[in-house]
């Protein structure tokens, strides 16, 4: 743990905190363009966070300390996840703290806390949101793990840094197992980040709510932390996807020049990814909640298939 490492880690953290709301803003801008509307400003999420932090936090009478603790814990989990995933460099000093399986575990921890906090107030919306969130999680988490297993069998390790290094250093080969895993990963990230076709992030109808129902009772700084955590989750998922499937451009060492080159590469890849996400959201319609388990079961089975194809073809 030398000075370079600490600087790299701090840079990664700051980049995550700044770029995550920017990514959400960019997706909203692209979606508005594609739908022919005039777009909100790119920095709108920052303004929203600033506004929410200034507002008073209104809490229901029956809320327990768990309700007030949960947003901090969830924000902590997501920030820790963004510090572990190789976004700019694979040589982060904190990366050995958690490997791919622990990353999925961190997401599960955040999911359990938000579900418990939603059930805390005791309204119908809260328990409905908790039930749906746990349903999506129970199928999406195994699918994500299957994708990570395929990647780890290819690189003989579950440490994210090693996976990125191995996959990035191969000469360009088309690996069908990774292709199948990529399709499964896209489906899982759509579900976990509460995007169309699984959940509508801009809805106000209870029939279509999952994420919105969970944060219904929060306001002020707690809501700000939860929105920031959701943006960080999208950022982490995008970076994980880029690290697994498009690992070129991530720095291998912590020199200042390598990091400086990695940042524009990351921004460019995220911009393209954000645009594709907005495209998917515009083109697809939201599914009925009863179809979501089938959607995610398909993702899980694609993950299993990717594993089997890897065992068969060695690729």
């Amino acid at each position, binding site marked *: 743990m030398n000075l370079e490492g600490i600087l790299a880690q701090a840079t990664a953290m700051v980049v995550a905190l700044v770029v995550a709301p920017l990514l959400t803003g960019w997706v909203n801008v692209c979606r508005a363009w594609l739908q022919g509307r005039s777009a909100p400003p790119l920095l709108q999420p920052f303004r929203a966070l600033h506004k929410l932090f200034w507002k008073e936090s209104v809490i229901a009478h029956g809320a327990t300390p768990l309700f007030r603790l949960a947003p901090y814990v969830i*924000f902590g989990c997501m920030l820790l996840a963004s510090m572990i995933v190789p976004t700019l460099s694979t040589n982060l000093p904190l990366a050995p703290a958690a490997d791919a399986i622990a990353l999925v*575990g961190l997401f599960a921890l955040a999911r359990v806390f938000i579900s418990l906090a939603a059930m805390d107030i005791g309204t119908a919306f809260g328990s409905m949101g908790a039930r749906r969130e*746990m349903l999506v999680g129970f199928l999406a988490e195994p699918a994500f793990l299957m994708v990570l297993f395929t990647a780890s069998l290819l690189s003989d390790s579950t440490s994210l840094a090693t996976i990125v290094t191995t996959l990035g250093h191969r000469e360009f080969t088309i690996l069908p197992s990774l292709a199948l895993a990529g399709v499964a990963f896209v489906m899982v990230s759509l579900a976990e980040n509460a995007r169309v076709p699984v959940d509508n992030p801009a809805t106000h109808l209870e029939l279509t709510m999952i994420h919105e129902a969970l944060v219904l009772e929060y306001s002020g700084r707690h809501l700000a932390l939860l929105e920031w955590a959701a943006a960080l989750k999208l950022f982490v998922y995008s970076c994980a996807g880029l690290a697994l499937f498009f690992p070129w451009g991530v720095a291998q060492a912590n020199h200042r020049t390598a990091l400086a080159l990695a940042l524009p590469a990351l921004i460019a890849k995220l911009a393209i990814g954000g645009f594709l996400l907005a495209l998917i959201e515009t083109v697809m319609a939201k599914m009925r909640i009863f179809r979501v388990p089938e959607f995610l079961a398909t993702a899980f089975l694609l993950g299993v298939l990717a594993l089997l194809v890897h065992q068969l073809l060695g690729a």
Partner: protein
Amino acid sequence: MIGSLLTIDAVLIVVAAWIVVGLAGIAAVRYPGFVAHGLFPLSAALSAALCGIALAALPGTPETAILAIGLPGLPFHLRLDALSSFFLFLVGIASAGISIFSAGYFRRGEGTPAGVMCMQYHVFLAAMAMVIVSDDAYAFMVCWESMALSSYFLVTTNHRIPEIQRAGYLYLLIAHIGAIAILLCFGVLQANTGDYTFANMRAQHLAPFWASCAFLLALFGFGAKAGVLPLHVWLPEAHPAAPSPVSALMSGVMLKTAIYGMLRVTFDLVSTPIWWWGVVALSLGLATAFFGVVFAAAQVDMKRLLAYSSIENIGLIVMAFGLAIVFRAYGMRSLAALAMTALLFHCINHALFKSLLFLGTGSVLHATNERSLGKLGGLMRFMPWVAWTALAGVIAAAGLPPSNGFASEWLLLQGFLFTGALPNPYLKMLVPLFAGGLVLVAALAAYVMVKFFGVIFLGRPREERLEQAQDAGRLERLGLAWLTAGCILLGLFPAAVIEAIDPIAFSLLGQGLAQGGRVGDWLMLAPVSAERASYSAPLVFALIVAIVLTTFLAVRRFYHGRVRRAAAWDCGTPFQTARMQDTAEGFGQPIRQIFEPFFRMRRELPSPADERPRYRVTIEDPMWAAIFVRIAAIIEWISGVVGTLQRGRISIYLLYSFVTLVALLLLTQA
């Protein structure tokens, strides 16, 4: 005399002391206060002493002793090696917490007087400890039966309720079916030499056919006690019927003695497993785990939910067992050590967090007199101690970092990911599918635990009298705190635990995980190498806490920390009652819908013409109807047929004797 005291003698002293405490309970049956506040804490102290003794014995050499109890010429052979010490440690640490809790829990006897219960409890503990140190089949079976009988009496404590009687009967029946299988297994293992000591069984080299017979009998027999499919039907009946500390002891400790039995027979007495045994164990384990967790999601009684969750965890342990067998059969000893370490770690984790959860439900039951999830809710405000310790247990049971449940599941998944090195192509492709099933079960376990904690402790109280619920007493809090501390420490320092477990893998497999090097230091767990996989629980915990504190202070510094209390928003709905929350059936409905073919569901749907519309759904165990009811019908038919031999007339019976005499005379003449 003290100088020549072996560790195994210390263990026997603890066991004898337990029995003395039990007898004192009988003697003091008129003074329940003394039994509760004097004897149970003493028993807890003895359990803590057993922990220390077992820890000291873990890295040491195996010791033997001969106890001249029993029949003349058939003494008890006892042995304390690494595997036994580990399970003794498990018994000690779990029972310490449970005994302290029971000191505050057993008030006036509900059915059985507290003194009698004290004796049954301590005989149970002593029998479990003796099973673990037994070194011959005779001692093992005597102690196994004592364990079954004493736990039967404990289960039927409130014996005036007919359901509880029925549950106890079913428990005893299946325990004995298992015991017969275990006895037959020992019979096969002694290979016609007539010597039933384990030392003799170790020296035998059985043909593969007989070895497989022994393994399958052991799997069946010990599986009946552990709650493996399809002999699990007693678990969801017996655990809710028993008082909560007894459920905790049974679920946390007794199921593990069955796992001890499986490990002892397969890796010690038979010594070279065959690969397809592992596949059988893997499949059975996955089926059990899946079945347990799916049924747990559909339960409406909090103790039945925890019982099914125990079935799920036993399924996971049996899967680890199967994986260890597969690796060992192909000679990959270090990977087998990885799987076995994961197995043992999960055993102790489950003992701690399941006992914690059962004790929490005991407090809830005492405070509210309510077991059904549909009548609870919002108890976190009135019972904060129970709620926060139960939260620790729930996080561990759901397998979330940085808890101990996550650490053992992480280790097990690492074991599954090494299967690319297996030579058999069928297995190479099949075992990752088991890993997929494992993660599915783990994710569903999180769902079940959110349901459990959310419906009981969060939300609004579904009944008004819940607001009078009182938090747990002082001794109960001590028990809960002990188990919570165990969970947290084991979760934060998994590398230390794994290094302590290492001698067991070494003694059973010939190779440990550490391989001379270190598994990691106190900070990081890296079972093979840091490039391969690493996980640092203290770092994850410390970082999350650091970020939480920093964010809290930063927000207060740059913005403000004002809070206003108001009514819940609920999208502007003006009228909110507690009935508008999810019921237990409601929270489990998506799982019921997805896995409908597994349940035997009966639904009563309201029609528009009903004056008082009702919705009721009952879930039944399909195994019960498919297997046990059919077997019972066949047995009844057979006994009907045999019953025709009994006519009731004396001349017929005399005829039987006459015919037998004539046949014998003819035989001896020839």
